[in-house]
């Protein structure tokens, strides 16, 4: 009986220890590959995921360490910006001159749509009859055509 009690206590202690150890180990919230596709290797001028330079290796090790420590993607990006500046971010910032990377394509698209709409309107107007005149059905052959038709019919004696 006493042995069973001691065994129960040991199992309980072991379970608590295992649970607390699990709780102390941070769970990764992101991955190296996810971060690497969104940040640059500042020396190479390419995405970190494509870079293999010594600087890129150090940067990847830095990211892996933060991932293992359970830091979020935003926290890791902030840490990289603190080390290398905003140039380390692959996506342009939403402020300053970088804002043009988002605004210029939108403006260009809107201008293109407006130009296309104006072009279509102008093209359709060019096909319309002048203002005030309705489109009338054709009025039959001219007098000259009628005479020629009569002559042809007479010649073939139909």
């Amino acid at each position, binding site marked *: 009986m006493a042995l069973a009690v001691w065994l129960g206590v040991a199992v309980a202690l072991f379970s608590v220890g295992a649970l607390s150890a699990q709780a102390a180990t941070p769970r990764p919230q992101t991955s190296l590959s996810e971060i690497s596709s969104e940040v640059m290797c*500042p*020396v190479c001028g390419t995405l970190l995921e494509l870079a293999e*330079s*010594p*600087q890129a*290796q*150090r*940067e990847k090790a*830095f990211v892996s360490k933060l991932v293992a420590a359970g830091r979020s993607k935003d926290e890791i990006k902030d840490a990289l910006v*603190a*080390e*290398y*500046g*905003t*140039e*380390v971010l692959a996506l342009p910032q939403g402020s300053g*001159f970088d804002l*043009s990377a988002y605004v*210029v394509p939108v403006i260009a698209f809107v201008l293109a749509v407006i130009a296309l709409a104006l072009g279509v309107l102008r093209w359709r107007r060019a096909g319309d009859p002048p203002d005030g005149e309705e489109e009338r059905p054709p009025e039959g052959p001219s007098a000259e055509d009628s005479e020629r038709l009569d002559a042809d019919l007479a010649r073939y004696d139909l």
Partner: protein
Amino acid sequence: MSTRAAIAVLAVLAVIGLLAFGLLNKGSSRVAVGEVAPAAPLPRLAGGRRGSLADYRGRWVLVNIWASWCGPCREEAPALEQFQRHHGSPSFTVLGIDSRDLSGDGRAFVKSYGLSYPQLRDGNGDTAHDFGTTGVPENYLIDPEGKVKLVVVGPVDPEYLDDQVAPLLPGDGQS
């Protein structure tokens, strides 16, 4: 000029302007001998204070732009430290600029080589860009007026430092 033509010209000028801005923003040329060296303030590698090459105006400064991930930087570090120990004085110092490097790695590098000269941190590489560097290491000897006196692309060795740099420094009787 019709309105349509004016809009087209403006659009072309805007595109050219954007391209020119991009090119000017990216390109840089190396500072030449006789030019004033860039002296933007930078954080110190150890500690939160800021420093600048301008703080050393009136002294000769050998600016060493380096990074901990760079092999040749490891090769030249002992020679620079030895030169600093022999020639460091109120009229001369080596000044390290750790560029595009992780600050922890940079500090570990300084500790590992026992570098005693001051170190600034150029995390985003702006100062290296202003100097017009194409890589690391690069070395620039700056005179007391802040002008570039010597440019060395690549690592320096004890012979170069003794033969080319030392004779220019005060106390060697040639300056």
